[in-house]
């Protein structure tokens, strides 16, 4: 252990949570400069909690929507029992470990916590559903990047359990490697949608999650037709590129209801906020998770259709009458673990590495920043879409 590292530390300062929330409401990403995130240039990385744990040095670490929610004071209080403060954010990490490039699978399940016997989900390989996120040899934390004991990717040094580490294949450059974790989340959601041959699908949102979900659908469960709601022009272009041979159209979010009607040849009912398609697509993947996107998902999904929510919703108010009246199934999709594909059980991360390589998702990394420019990086990430960007990451390679 040595001091002298740099890290961005998320402090336990309730007053600054409030300031971040207020600032972010005034300006997108405004919480970055006034919130609880502080740069520590004399950072003391965490102690190793057990003999298996190792020290790693981040190379690139992405900024995720859940990170932005935390930085801007917008996280749900649901997380309170399963995080521990202060923590160093950063769970999309490609790092060095004894001269080898590694990826972190950040969920802190029973293996990392030295809990035996493992909970049922962990025993089944469904790491994201671990039931012991507040127990064991480390502090509460659903993932690295939200746990006091582990540090996180927004630093020059952190710790990891070997069960979390994956060696980066030589053919993946750092930018591609840092996309593996978000790609794993997205493909887990895309496969959870269970698109059968002949079914139509819609993806709402075309940021990192949406674009990776589109690539995953196209790769493993191609729908008969795909509709994408994307705010920005470059997102619509990327959506169509990543859809590959799948017949796809991409529209602005305000046009999604009518577009789904056109796609399905259905009729429309209602007007204004109650406008919806009488039928609709078979399955919708919501990669945004706002009240607006959930409302849209329920409006464009056919009776008895499915909605999968990948985007982190937080506290939202949505009229669930359509869920009831149309018997729509809504399910969440969080992180990853093991996927069932063609009768085989495969680790999501293994599939994600393949997807990143085959779809070229490394191109979604639009800009990297040093830790010293954290505010710029976080504002850029919060406004990525409108600035023609997708994924923003911290780059600590020059620190080595």
């Amino acid at each position, binding site marked *: 252990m040595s001091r002298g590292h740099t890290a961005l530390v998320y402090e336990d300062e309730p007053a600054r949570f409030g300031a971040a929330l207020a600032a972010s409401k005034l300006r997108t990403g405004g919480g970055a400069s006034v919130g609880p995130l502080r740069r520590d240039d004399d950072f003391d990385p965490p102690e190793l909690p057990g003999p298996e744990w190792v020290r790693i040095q981040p190379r690139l670490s992405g900024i995720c929507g859940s990170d932005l929610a935390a930085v801007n004071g917008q996280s749900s209080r649901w997380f309170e029992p399963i995080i521990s403060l202060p923590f160093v954010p950063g769970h999309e990490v490609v790092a060095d470990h004894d001269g080898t490039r590694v990826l972190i699978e950040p969920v802190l399940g029973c293996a990392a916590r030295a809990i035996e016997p493992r909970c049922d989900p962990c025993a089944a390989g469904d790491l994201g559903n671990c039931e012991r996120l507040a127990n064991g040899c480390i502090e509460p934390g659903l993932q690295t990047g939200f746990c006091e004991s582990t540090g996180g990717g927004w630093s020059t040094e952190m710790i990891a359990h070997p069960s979390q580490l994956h060696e980066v294949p030589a053919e993946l450059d750092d930018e591609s490697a840092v996309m593996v974790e978000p790609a794993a989340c997205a493909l887990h959601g895309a496969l959870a949608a269970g698109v059968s041959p002949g079914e139509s699908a819609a993806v709402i949102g075309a940021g990192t999650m949406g674009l990776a979900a589109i690539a995953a659908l196209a790769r493993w469960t191609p729908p008969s037709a795909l509709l994408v709601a994307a705010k920005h022009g470059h997102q619509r272009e990327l959506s169509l590129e990543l859809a590959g041979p799948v017949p796809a*159209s991409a*529209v*602005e979010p305000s*046009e999604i209801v*009518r*577009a789904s*009607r*056109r796609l399905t*040849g*259905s*009729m*429309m009912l209602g*007007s204004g906020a109650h406008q919806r398609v009488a039928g609709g697509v078979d399955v919708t993947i919501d990669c945004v998770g706002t009240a607006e996107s959930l409302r849209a998902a329920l409006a464009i999904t056919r009776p008895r259709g499915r909605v999968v929510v990948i985007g982190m919703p937080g506290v939202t108010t949505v009229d669930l009458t359509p869920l009831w009246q149309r018997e729509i199934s809504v399910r969440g999709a969080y992180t990853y673990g093991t996927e069932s594909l063609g009768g085989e059980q495969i680790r999501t991360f293994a599939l994600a590495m393949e997807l990143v390589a085959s779809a070229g998702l490394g191109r979604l990394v639009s800009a990297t920043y040093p830790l010293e420019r954290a505010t710029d990086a976080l504002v850029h990430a919060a406004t990525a879409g409108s600035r023609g960007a997708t994924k923003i990451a911290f780059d600590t390679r020059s620190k080595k």
Partner: protein
Amino acid sequence: MHHGEQFRLEKLPADRSRIIYPPEPLEPIEDPDAAIREALESPIDSEPLRALLHAGMKLTIAFDDISLPLPPMRRPDIRQRVIEAVLDLAAEAGVDDVHLIAALALHRRMTEDELRHAVGDRVYDALAPRGQLYNHDAEDPDALVVLGETRHGEEVQISRRAAESDLVVYVNINLVAMDGGWKSTATGLSGYQALRHHHNPATMKKSKSFMDRHSSELHSSNWRQGEVLRNSGVKVFQIETTVNNDIYGDGPMQVLAKREWEWNLADRATFMAARAGLDRMSPPARRKVMHGWRAPYGLTSVQAGEVEAVHEVTTENVYRQQLVEVEGQTDVVLFGLPYISPYNVDSIMNPILVHCLGLGYFFNMYRGKPLVREGGVVIMSHPTAPEFNPVHHPSYIDFFEEVLVETTDPVEMEQRFEKRYADDEWYRHLYRTGNAYHGVHPFYMWYWGAHALDHVGGVIVVGGDPGTVRRLGYRPATTMADALEMASDVVGPRPSITYFKNPPLMMADVK
């Protein structure tokens, strides 16, 4: 200059600009009812109408729909006068089996109020409750019949009721030279199966212009279909009317009909007050005021009898009012687009209708050659907001969101998208049961501009919503000065400029 539901004052370069003003309104016929009776008694190339009517016969009276005239006419509408005269003769002859059909083709169904306005309360109350007055339904398979094909392979489809009638009386208002003739029946009482043969980019590109029948492929096609109608035994007694261009009357709106250099202090004050008043209104209130205007038009002619012979006389009467001799073409033509077009009466002038009014109608208001030279620039003034009436124009919304995002090329959109829109069950449902234009209608509106799109070197919209204007394939300009500067990129420095001050409607006879 008209600018949607508002007006603009613009200064043009004095040394290279000209303004084409509409002619003064013709003197109207003093006794329209007498003129109508006379036309029915002394038709052209036909026996008098009373000689064609007899007890036990099947009589169908078809009439032009809400798209004519613009703005709508003050009561009594000329259609009412004509229909009452025809029904009086029918009653004298003992004709009981009479149907009145609004010949709207793929336009939206008229509401009860609109039908009452067109035919009058007496006619409406006598026939509508008994199901004898109704809107044409181009999607009712039982109500249409295909009578054959033209020598060019164009199918001819018409209302079954009309086809099976002993006589069809068509009551028309020729607001522009394009209206009337065989277009009344071959289009107005027909359906998509037949209309697609002339409402398409190839035909529109070859129509130069729509207002000059002998140079219009659209009309040639309609005339061929009319020939099939005639040869199939459909007997048509055509009654065509023309009106003068008095759309403002003697009230405060009269200032809009004056040449600006004739404005006195009161005119200036009236104009400024109107602008200020409109500015202060909410958009719905402003729309209501504008669309509430009913024009006092005077009848300038009425002729009846054989379709083609009647139409020749009618066209001359339209030209008598509207034709303005213009010396030479121009590099840049300016159009101030008003709040109304044939397809948004009591509704919103959406961006597709802006295209249609500017490049479909105003551009084509010529005889001989277009007012703007080949490769010249059209500058239109209109807010061009991305607003739509979801009741009247549901398929327009999808056309804007889906088709125009992909292409503005009429040929490509016809090939890739038209059929799906024409066959869409939801649009069909809304057309048949609501007040929606047919699903294919926005395509036709775009096709109207096909010839202009081929001819001009660029289109600029002043004061329009930039994103919407770009989606139409045009260039947005904030001010007229900007637009003129942008135009010079296309046509060169110091271009000649012509402001074609429509409406009231006129046609350029370009020498």
